[in-house]
């Protein structure tokens, strides 16, 4: 059990009468990158938000580091988890540096430690400190904003990272760039990552395992190779759409 950084046990989440998530059982291994793949309305983002209690489940249990997440203090839980979203959600009135330094500052790190960490983490996302630290979000491109969002999520060095389609709003070229960089990055950082996407290429590229969701239920968990070879009826639509790109993956893997 302690191998699971995050675990869902019989979790159901309802709005009124409608169940957005039904009887979900899922374990995320420590140190792995788990992709939550599905179409709109599949429940993948809901699942993500149940982890850091942006949504509160009423049925079942969600364990983080072995403890039910309702036993955790919500604020401590969230600071233990890095969070990056599609629109980045950078504070428009903060500079890049101030945005990235947010959680370390809230956690009371001393100034020099914060400065060092900000520099380090901006380097990780390939944004030179001298050029970008004092810029405001509105002066950045979409891709740059996502990098800052990622840097911000990593700043306090949380063991768990939740990412909600972070590259979804970018143009295909920038998206591919960031996907490649993230693939390289996750090898350097040993974090547990839960990554929501509807893009099968991204899932295959970045995931150690892929959890396929549809209509609020988990349809199966696959390694990328298993996924490609699967004959499962829920997997088929993704593969058909993907067939042409298979060769690119084969040559790059």
């Amino acid at each position, binding site marked *: 059990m302690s191998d699971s950084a995050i675990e869902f046990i019989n979790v159901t989440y309802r709005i009124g009468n409608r169940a957005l998530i039904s009887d979900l059982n899922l374990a995320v291994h420590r140190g792995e990158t788990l992709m939550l793949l599905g179409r709109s309305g599949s429940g993948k983002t809901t699942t993500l938000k149940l982890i850091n209690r942006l949504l509160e489940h009423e049925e079942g249990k969600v364990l983080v580091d072995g403890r039910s997440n309702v036993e955790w203090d919500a604020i401590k839980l969230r600071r233990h988890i890095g969070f990056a979203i599609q629109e980045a*959600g950078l504070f428009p009135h903060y500079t890049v540096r101030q945005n990235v330094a947010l959680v370390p500052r809230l956690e009371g790190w001393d100034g020099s430690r914060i400065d060092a960490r900000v520099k380090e983490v901006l380097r990780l996302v390939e944004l030179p400190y001298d050029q970008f630290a004092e810029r405001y979000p509105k002066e950045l491109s979409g891709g740059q904003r996502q990098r800052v969002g990622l840097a911000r999520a990593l700043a306090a060095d949380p063991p768990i990272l*939740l990412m909600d389609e972070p590259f979804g709003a970018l143009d295909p070229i920038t998206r591919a760039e960031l996907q490649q960089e993230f693939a390289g990055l996750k090898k350097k950082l040993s974090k547990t990552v839960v990554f929501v996407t509807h893009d099968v290429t991204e899932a295959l590229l970045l995931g150690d395992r892929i959890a396929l969701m549809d209509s609020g239920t988990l349809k199966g968990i696959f390694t990328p190779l298993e996924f490609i070879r699967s004959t499962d009826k829920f997997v088929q639509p993704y593969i058909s759409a993907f067939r042409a790109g298979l060769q690119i993956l084969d040559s790059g893997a």
Partner: protein
Amino acid sequence: MSLPDFFVTHKREVLTLTAEHLWLVGVSMLLAIAIGVPLGILLSRRPAWRSLVLGASNIMQTIPSLALFGLLLPVPWLGSRADRLAILALTMYALLPVIRNTYVGIAGVDAPVREAAIGMGLTQRQLLWQVELPLASSVIIAGIRTATVITVGVATIAAAIGAGGLGEFIFRGLAMVDNNVILAGAIPAALMALSADLLLALVQRSLVRTHH
């Protein structure tokens, strides 16, 4: 006597009445901000109260000022002192723009920004002070600006019930049928409203620059 000469010979009186007017406006605006901003914040947290609070302040604003003064006169403690009564009425008029703009400003914070803030572990208080209020500040100042200009205007009517201020010149001038006296009240009052508006517009603009 020409108007400029009038201002010179009655300099002291003009200054006294202007000071009284500033005080009426100042205290009322401080109260309106002290009550209105927290109420606006409350409304952003409890949408169920929205129609009640906004509805109530809307009604208060709809009552004509002279009528409101008259309605409040019989109230104990308040009605026995005209300036107290005037300040209460002026505060009531200033509340709606302040409450509404605070609420709208905070509600207008981008959803992704709010989601990211909460997701990263900001407490409600940190969210309010470090994200919502700074981002809503220019809209809130706009509300304060509207409220201040209204208050300067309504305060001239307060002289009718004995609260002093520049309106006293206006009413006196009407009784004396003397234009100089009327203008001695009307011009400073108009200037006060304009300068307050200008000043707060500058504040508003500087906030927009740094916060968006």
